[in-house]
């Protein structure tokens, strides 16, 4: 090992540049994690919640961010240590029958999320052009396929993640709106069901927000991405940093979206039902320049998530059936993986072509995500505690305790989701 004081000048220069590269790599990882955190589910759910409940549901976002940090970190570690992705191990460890339920639930939710994300891309393009979103759906679908087919994994992940950072404009606009900070702080720290809203509706949106923060595809994408990028045990610290710094900062963006809606839309009695309403507070605070930033951000966030969900559909099915998969292989060597992605994109576009409201698809996808969460996260926890796969990198006691506490919350949210949906008339 060439230490700082012992090597030649050349060694020192090489060491310095590799240290710089590593810092750059960590920074890039964190920035893409922040920019890639928000998707159509986070955008819509946070804006709806902010416009109807103010910041009284921020505690759910915090809970969801802690949860996704725990499980993304675990699944990243499983992939780095074993060199295999989540679904491959789940099928092997639990057997084909038990893991089939996991596959069906995850695949269905992923397909629903993919449809919502492609719809989100089309809606963002409508905001920029005023051309109806249905005309943009084929364009969005084709662009997603083209990028998944042609662009390298690292590039597609980094470019969309970095462009998604423009959503920071929500935080900037929150300051420009000059809100009553005490009032916002009180809303956030003393959560209560606001006047005019039913408790069932409040808890329905709590479950939706939790589902939006802990969407299952994020974990599949994260673990499969670790295999795509050939992570090893050496990369564990960087992966931890990406998750533990990037995701909470991404969660901060979610809170900023809710806060902007709480400051501008809630007092005007405007409950969010469309993407065009989500960006109104930004235009109010920052005018056309801020509007341009937010549209780029929404486009990048939804397009990035559309890529991730498309890839996740290929990952889950291919890993379950043992097919050759991955962007690190040429498409001809992973034909079924690419075919699944194309078919899923076509199904998503077909659903959108029926004229179904993409925002409604988004709202239902985050609630059904909450229903499917235990099926996704319980197997990951089982595998992370199996020394046959993890060796000395099995979960520690503290992590297991925290993860188990979260499993209880996840189970409660999953059990409550459908009854709350019926009781509240899907949040009406």
């Amino acid at each position, binding site marked *: 090992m060439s230490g700082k004081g012992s090597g030649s000048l050349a060694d020192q220069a090489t060491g310095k540049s590799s240290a710089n590269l590593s810092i750059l790599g960590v920074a890039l990882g964190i920035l893409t994690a922040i920019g890639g955190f928000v998707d159509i589910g986070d955008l819509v759910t946070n804006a709806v919640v902010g416009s109807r409940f103010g910041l009284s549901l921020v505690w759910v976002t915090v809970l969801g961010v802690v949860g996704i940090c725990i499980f993304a970190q675990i699944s990243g570690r499983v992939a780095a240590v074993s060199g295999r992705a989540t679904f491959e191990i789940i099928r092997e460890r639990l057997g084909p029958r038990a893991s089939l339920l996991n596959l069906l639930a995850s695949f269905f939710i992923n397909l629903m999320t993919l449809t919502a994300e492609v719809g989100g891309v089309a809606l963002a393009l409508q*905001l*920029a052009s005023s051309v109806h979103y249905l005309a943009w759906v084929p364009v969005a679908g084709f662009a997603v396929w083209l990028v998944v087919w042609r662009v390298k994994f690292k590039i597609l992940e980094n470019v969309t993640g970095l462009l998604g950072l423009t959503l920071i404009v929500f935080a900037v606009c929150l300051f420009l709106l000059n809100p009553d900070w005490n009032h916002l702080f009180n809303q956030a720290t003393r959560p209560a069901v606001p006047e005019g809203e039913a408790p069932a509706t409040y808890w329905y949106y709590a479950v939706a927000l939790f589902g939006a923060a802990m969407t299952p595809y994020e974990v599949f994408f994260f673990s499969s991405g670790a295999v795509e990028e050939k992570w090893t045990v050496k990369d564990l610290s960087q992966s931890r940093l990406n998750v533990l710094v990037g995701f909470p900062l991404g969660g901060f963006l979610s809170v900023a979206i809710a806060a902007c809606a709480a400051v501008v839309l809630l007092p005007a009695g*405007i*409950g969010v*039902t469309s993407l*065009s309403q989500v960006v*109104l507070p930004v*235009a*109010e605070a920052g005018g*056309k320049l801020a509007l341009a930033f937010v549209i780029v951000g929404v486009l990048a966030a939804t397009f990035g998530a559309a890529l991730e969900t498309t890839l996740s559909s290929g990952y889950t099915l291919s890993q379950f059936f043992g097919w050759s998969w991955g962007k690190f292989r040429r498409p001809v060597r992973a034909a079924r993986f690419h075919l699944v992605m194309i078919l899923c994109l076509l199904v998503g576009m077909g659903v959108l072509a029926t004229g179904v409201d993409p925002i409604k698809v988004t709202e239902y996808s985050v609630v059904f995500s909450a229903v499917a969460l235990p099926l996704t996260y319980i197997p990951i926890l089982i595998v992370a505690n199996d020394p046959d796969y993890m060796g000395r990198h099995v979960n520690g006691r503290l992590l297991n305790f925290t993860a188990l506490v979260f499993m209880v919350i996840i189970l409660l949210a999953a059990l409550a989701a459908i009854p709350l949906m019926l009781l509240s008339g899907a949040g009406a």
Partner: protein
Amino acid sequence: MNRLGRSLKRFAMLAALLLLATGCSSGLADPLGQSAKEASAAVGSAAMVLRLETEDKATDALSETTLGDMVDQSTAAYQSAAELTPKTADDLALQQNILQTLDRALRSLHSAQLAQASGDASAVQAVVVRLQAQAAELAELGKELKP
């Protein structure tokens, strides 16, 4: 708006409040209140985006998209209210009153689309004032029917 129009509007508002007093306990109050709230949010959003455009804070594309979305939302609210089946005369009167209010809101939204497309600043400003008043009226109705 002329004096006759204002008087008619006041009369309609009074009639609505009287009907509310008798009809709040009926099965229609809740869904009609929901329709009124949804239409209020739509009309309020339309007023906001047009105001932002007059202040040069919103683009044509955003205004056009928002107005289109809000027309769709108000139409859906109108359809939900129209599909309800009243069982009593009071319910019927309440439903018709809400439908008339929603119809006025829809017409205002269509006027807003025309004004926005024409680029006539004074027409847009007049529409903004009307939309703001209608949003407040619908919000009031929504609160009375579905507290």
